């Protein structure tokens, strides 16, 4: 019986010793990492991520993925008034009104759409966040000035604003990016300012002040990191809007005039003349726009859930 007791005691000691040890690298679970873990378990997030990754992949490797040159008018001889060649051997989606391979044009089009979307969102986010930090960190009259400026931008309808800017800056893709970026600025600025103001009144900021931490360190070390999650979420959602807006501006004829770069919005625009002949010409680019926007939106929404403290644990 005593032997039995000894064994048990030994076993307990063993377990206790093991409980005391912590596997390497598990000391602290950062919020980003735990958010990522939650994201991985969410099927909606997976779907959004898959869509986004597929399109990014396609855009990155367009020259290798596209079956043909998007500009070569291979099937021009078959195009007649009232007839545009459909799917056939070597042309899975058929050709457009100028005899160019539709699939290749869609694949190359993803480059332009994603590029404009990403660049303009990043630009808008950076400028917007800078303004937001300025307003949120200083408060007082700085806050008032910045926010009235933002209100002015916000009071102009975003499409009207984008059209005016691209008209002002001339017709090129950079003008398009800047135009879309400007319409994104107010959202980021307001969002960051609002969440920074909310954090500034929190107990840990008071506690940090009570310990004599410098103001710059409180703003950038404490307030900003806690205010970023809504901005990150807004970033992914803004990507979707930026892509749609880029397509809309191209559709209105304000896009990149360089025909060497196919773009979904521009494709949609030219396809409207041939809707009765071959509606697929409009359907495919439209579908691409919708699916990419959906991908970013799904990812953004699940990111919001993953970063929301209410869903934590």
């Amino acid at each position, binding site marked *: 019986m005593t032997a039995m007791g000894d064994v048990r005691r030994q076993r307990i000691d063993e377990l206790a010793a093991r409980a005391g040890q912590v596997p390497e690298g598990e000391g602290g679970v950062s919020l980003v990492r735990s958010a990522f873990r939650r994201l991985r378990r969410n099927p909606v997030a997976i779907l959004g991520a898959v869509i986004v990754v597929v399109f990014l992949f396609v855009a990155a490797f367009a020259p290798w993925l596209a079956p043909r040159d998007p500009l070569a008018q291979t099937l021009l001889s078959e195009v007649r008034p009232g007839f545009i060649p459909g799917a056939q051997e070597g042309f899975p989606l058929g050709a457009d009104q100028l005899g160019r391979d539709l699939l290749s044009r869609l694949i190359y089009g993803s480059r332009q759409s994603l590029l404009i979307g990403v660049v303009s969102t990043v630009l808008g986010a950076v400028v917007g966040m800078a303004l937001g930090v300025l307003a949120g960190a200083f408060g007082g009259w700085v806050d008032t000035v910045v926010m009235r400026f933002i209100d002015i931008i916000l009071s102009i309808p975003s499409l009207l604003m984008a059209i005016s800017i691209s008209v002002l800056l001339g017709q090129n893709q950079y003008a398009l990016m800047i135009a879309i970026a400007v319409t994104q600025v107010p959202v980021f600025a307001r969002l960051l300012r609002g969440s920074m103001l909310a954090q500034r009144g929190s107990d*840990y900021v008071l506690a940090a002040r*009570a310990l*004599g931490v410098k103001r710059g360190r409180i703003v950038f070390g404490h307030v900003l990191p*806690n205010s970023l999650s809504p901005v990150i979420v807004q970033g992914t959602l803004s990507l979707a809007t930026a892509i749609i807006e880029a397509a809309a501006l191209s559709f209105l004829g304000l896009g990149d005039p360089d025909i060497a770069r196919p773009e979904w919005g521009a494709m949609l625009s030219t396809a409207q003349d041939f809707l009765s002949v071959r509606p697929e010409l409009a359907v495919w680019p439209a579908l691409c726009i919708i699916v990419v926007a959906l991908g970013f939106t799904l990812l953004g929404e699940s990111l919001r859930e993953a970063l929301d403290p209410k869903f934590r644990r």
Partner: protein
Amino acid sequence: MSIEALPPEGALRTDVPVLEVEDLSVTFARRGEQPTRAVDGVSFSVAAGETVGLVGESGCGKSVTSLAVMGLLPRRGVQVGGSVRLGGTELLGAPDRTLRRLRGAEMAMVFQDPLSSLNPTVPIGTQVTEVLVEHRDMGKKEAATEAAELLDRVGIPDPTRRLKEYPHQLSGGMRQRALIAMALACSPRLLIADEPTTALDVTIQAQILELLRELVVDSGTALVMITHDLGVVAGLCDRVHVMYAGKVIETADRHDLFARPRQPYTGGLLASVPRLDAGRGIPLTPIRGSARDAIPWAEGCAFAPRCDNAQDDCLTEVAGSTVPLEYDGPGRELRCRHPLTHPSSTAGATSSGSTASGAGR
């Protein structure tokens, strides 16, 4: 005297009490609103190694007093009057830079809710080292070693691992220990603890109080304990100031206060502490009414509407003057015209003895 010109070390005098608060008043005045006087003529002082308690109900001005001492009240819409001296140096009206340098280094504060007082997105270690880097000019590595030592000193096991963890991974008691470690990182001369045990359960409360007591005794830190818990007062404080509606209404040594409460409010507080030996079915004896029933001090004793001893001359219009804070025997001060009397000292001692132990848990 320019505070800036003084060397950072030894800038504060040691021949005066660590903290002297004189006639402190805080008025909140927002535009278009009636100004509210949250603290009114509060005076007290704390010597090195001494623990002073500020006791009172919610809203009596104890937390505002502590924030005013630390200079943490917002500038706009708040008027602070009187004098607050830390080691002889006047803090009210001192420039922000001076205050920031003193906060954390010479005076520190521990707050009520340990979870919300820690930044949820930053590891504990970063938050502890921050103070060391800020005030003690330490390098990152040196600060990390020192931080581990600090956590060890406040009784957090496996400190090196804990430093990498986030606040939500620590238990409530450990969080409060971490906060105390941060507050004591630079061995401040003054520590203000604003209800440090309210958010913790009772067993942890006792540990935290014990820890605070040890630290105060070891380092000679002056401790201001803000609490509504008479058990905390009984266990920790040397002197007690009871506050009501922004004013100090009774001051006494701990033993005196528990043995012979003079202000009916203090008496009510002591009587309302639940007692384990009271037996079942015996109702608690609360103070009737609530803190909102106070009348302005200018019109009379703020506690009069809830007081059993109140008489006509508690009102200013009858007595012709407001109720003053007066000498009430050695080491005692009292703001009351009809204090509780304790007929025989022996009877008072026995009854109060049980009260004190009941309150002291």
